């Protein structure tokens, strides 16, 4: 039983090279707008409560349909690059060049930020595409 669980867990692991090659893509349901100074505000649609769940309370306190999230300057620039064209490595290189971060600084900052976005379903990661004659993409990626 434990061995089976361990094998399942190992199969789901993504190695570092594969995760760095993956490309973050924005959730299409999330709308965003930009201020003239480049700061981005996300409008995240919230799941609506079913009528039966809280009809009474919903009438009293109408739930918000959209949650707004304002990103900071670096976060906004990363969000703009989450277009499926740039891999995590591209983002790291850009951060190091643009903000003079050391590799580790950029890696910790960016992976933490992307993980937060992914947890909140604002982005998803797409694995490297398999091309004819090239090796298969690593297992574990969507």
């Amino acid at each position, binding site marked *: 039983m434990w061995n089976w669980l361990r094998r399942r867990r190992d199969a789901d692991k993504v190695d570092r090279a594969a995760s760095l090659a993956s490309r973050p893509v924005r959730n299409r349901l999330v709308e965003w707008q930009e201020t003239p100074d480049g700061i981005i505000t996300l409008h995240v649609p919230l799941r609506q409560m079913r009528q039966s769940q809280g009809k009474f309370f919903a009438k009293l306190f109408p739930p918000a349909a959209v949650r707004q999230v304002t990103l900071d300057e670096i976060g906004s620039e990363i969000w703009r690059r989450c277009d499926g064209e740039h891999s995590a490595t591209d983002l790291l290189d850009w951060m190091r060049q643009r903000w*003079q*971060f050391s590799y580790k*600084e950029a890696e910790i900052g960016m992976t933490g930020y992307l993980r937060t976005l992914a947890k909140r379903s604002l982005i998803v990661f797409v694995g490297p595409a398999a091309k004819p004659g090239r090796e298969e993409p690593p297992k574990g990626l969507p």
Partner: protein
Amino acid sequence: MTEPTYQFGWRRFQFEVPEPWEPSHLEGDDAGGYARLDDALRTRLELKWSRSYADDACDVAFRRYLKQLVRPYGKRGGAAVMPHEPKEISLVSRWPDGMRGRTVRWSAEVDGLATIIACSRCNRVTAIQVFFPPGEMQTGLMRRILETFRDHPEDPDGPVGWSLYRMRFQAPARWRLVAHRFGPGYAEMNFRGPDGLLADLRRWGPAEIILKKQNLLDWYLAQFPKGVTVEKKDVTQAEVRGDVVLAVASEPRGLLAILRRRGRVEVAKQGLCLQSVAWHCPAGNRLWMTDVYAPTLPAAQAGDWKVFCHGEAQGA
């Protein structure tokens, strides 16, 4: 070694490593500890050190290392897994005085080179282990690391070099690192010196973003710890090699400050004299700040350290 290198410096250790290798784990103190350096994809170097006063410290540690290479497979024992061909080799023809080292190479899932170094001058035994992808072992790289390896400064009272995450500075040998914090955009190292001296080095970035909302002076005044009050009139401003440098030398007065300095009340930073310097380094896009707290102002001002923020040294 063809790729660019830098001098890694941590807890009196100094050696050259390729530029992409940066610390991913740091723990322990001067007497014993562990450091791990990674490149973009994998762990590349491990450093483990401890105190030993034995004459044969190198041989004992070497035997222990070889024993540890053989590990039982799985938690419940089973067949022992021996890395293929562990073989002792010689990479350094002549070690510095007081230092002795033994090197072994091995292959398993990855290839590795490990050297056990014992130094009779600082009584530290160090295991330095470098990993290579299978079939890509570079003895030249390990040789370069070992040839530049130093585990104590030449002059016992001279400056000690520190270098990691593009932070490069020299601090007096008698200062001990007591705490550190490294994060994206913020790094802090806290030292403790003799006679109640406390010294902090802090770095923020990117300066371009921080200074968009406030000017350097306002930012600087907001960085002092709770209880340490510095006013605008106390700050002197100068230009050093094109960078704006702000400095404060303060000497708290009053009964409480006197009692604190004399140790009657728990020593806190707010009772001590302060010598602080902060500057903006546009080339590195960083803000730097060095604070030295001591019972007397001359002692705080004698805290001699040099920070190389972008090649040039800025003194505190």
